[in-house]
């Protein structure tokens, strides 16, 4: 089932000259884990925000084409309606805390209160997401007293509690230390295994290669390519788009060792060690 359908999407922020998104068309199936990569200012964040309706509803600006998310046409619905279908998590966990709630429990409830979920169901949903994101021990803590990784997982929990079918994450781990980042990646991985469609912008290519089914490469608002990690990272012109392949791919490229039976290089530690391991004398 198609969860996201984007057709000829064009968008320009108010007071700017050039298109932030330039004629994008693509589709995403239910349960896919999609990575978005590209240089800074290539339109990654704008694309994320267009899927949840912040573009154009929050920013205004010039908009063309259509985005359909889980059957809803984004242009015709308010952000709070679209929020029931798709959630978004931003880069800075700190700015996603409401600042009006005193415990993690209440913080997660904020969205549910707004959309009018009955109290008993609210409690059930909160318990589920606390477990899913491994933050149950902190339920009574003050939201601002959490570490970055915990705070970001709380932000994801707050979104997941609203039961969207799709979650968009815009560089969710860039402010975190490696351990905090790994906690977040594993949490997202668990969501993906539960059938939630995931769209993630990320600079850490090793992580993208490890977790994603497909990778979209953007440049200046245009889609350059949208394919499997192996195909994308085997491209010779990656660096001209401001990205570099995972370390494992770069090693195998230098040694010209492809995944057997394909035209592509390994992208993960596992694939690389399999290919290289077979050659150890």
């Amino acid at each position: 089932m198609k969860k996201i359908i984007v057709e000829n999407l064009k968008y320009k922020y108010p007071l700017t000259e050039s298109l932030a998104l330039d004629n994008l068309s693509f589709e995403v199936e239910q349960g896919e884990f999609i990575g978005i990569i590209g240089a800074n200012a290539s339109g990654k964040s704008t694309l994320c925000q267009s899927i949840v309706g912040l573009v154009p509803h929050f920013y205004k600006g010039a908009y063309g084409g259509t985005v359909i998310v889980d059957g809803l046409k984004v242009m015709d619905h308010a952000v709070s309606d679209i929020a029931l279908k798709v959630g978004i998590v931003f880069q800075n966990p700190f700015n996603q805390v409401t600042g009006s709630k005193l415990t993690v429990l209440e913080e997660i409830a904020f969205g549910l209160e707004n959309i009018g979920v009955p109290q008993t169901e609210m409690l059930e949903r909160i318990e589920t997401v606390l477990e899913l994101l491994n933050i149950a021990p902190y339920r009574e803590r003050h939201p601002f007293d959490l570490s970055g990784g915990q705070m970001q997982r709380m932000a994801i929990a707050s979104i997941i509690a609203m039961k969207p079918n799709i979650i968009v994450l815009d560089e969710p781990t860039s402010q975190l230390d490696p351990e905090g980042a790994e906690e977040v990646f594993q949490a997202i991985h668990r969501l993906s295994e539960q059938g939630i469609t995931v769209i993630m912008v990320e600079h850490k290519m090793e992580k993208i290669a490890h977790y994603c089914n497909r990778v979209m490469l953007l440049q200046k608002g245009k889609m350059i390519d949208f394919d499997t990690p192996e195909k994308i990272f085997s491209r010779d012109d990656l660096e001209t788009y401001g990205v570099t392949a995972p370390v494992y791919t770069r090693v195998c490229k230098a040694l010209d060792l492809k995944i057997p039976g394909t035209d592509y290089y390994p992208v993960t530690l596992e694939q690389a060690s399999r290919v290289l391991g077979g050659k150890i004398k």
Partner: protein
Amino acid sequence: MIKISNLSYAYTKNTPIFSEINLEFDRRSTAIIGQNGAGKTTLAKLLKGLLKPFDGEIMIGQYNVKTVSAAELSKVIGLVFQNPNDQIFKSKVLDEVMFGPLAIKMSESAAKKNALEALELVGLHEQLETNPHDLSLSEKKLLCVAAVVAMDPEIIVFDEPTIGQDYAGKEKIRNIIQVLKKRNKLVMTIIHDMDFVAENFERTIVINEGIVILDGDTRKVFAEREILKHAHVEDPSITQLGKVLGFQETFLTVEEFVQRWKQSQR
């Protein structure tokens, strides 16, 4: 260049951040790594004189950090903060970079000369008149680097320089660090990006819960997998690949690995 003896520090009395730290820094480029909350940023602020040690001493060159003001210290040690928006306030790129040199009483002409050189180093020399807030976040970060380099301190400390940088931005930071090293500056950084550490820094210090648990040549440090794990630090991707394949050596760069691999295939 820097000598830390018996340093202790705490934000509140009962929870010490550091107790009795001893460290010396020479001109080797140095990465300070460890989990968030391990005390890395506190250490940088202590070195910079923004916090004063409770006990013990920090000597930077002939300056005792305890007795001189942070402003005075900025002639010898510069710190590039993580978030450029915490710093930028001038309406032109050139003015922003000249602010520091003028604040430490450099002459107008020397300040301008240094500022122009620093902007050339970070690649912003064609945007002297631009309003800094019209720059992208990664350009703003480079602007802040230039603002510190223009003050020409002997020691430059970066706080998470690679966060939010794409491939091109990282290459620029890498190049800036190399140039500063050539100018015989001590370059230090607090950083989470282990691949970047492996490729660019000679010495690595691992801090965990306010204690230096590893300190030495980067290669030796990344060989200590067990201790690193204990400090919640992941070793660099290329190091992991070498280990998985059973190599005895600790690899730090793709090139090293490729070369060693080719040898093994002969």
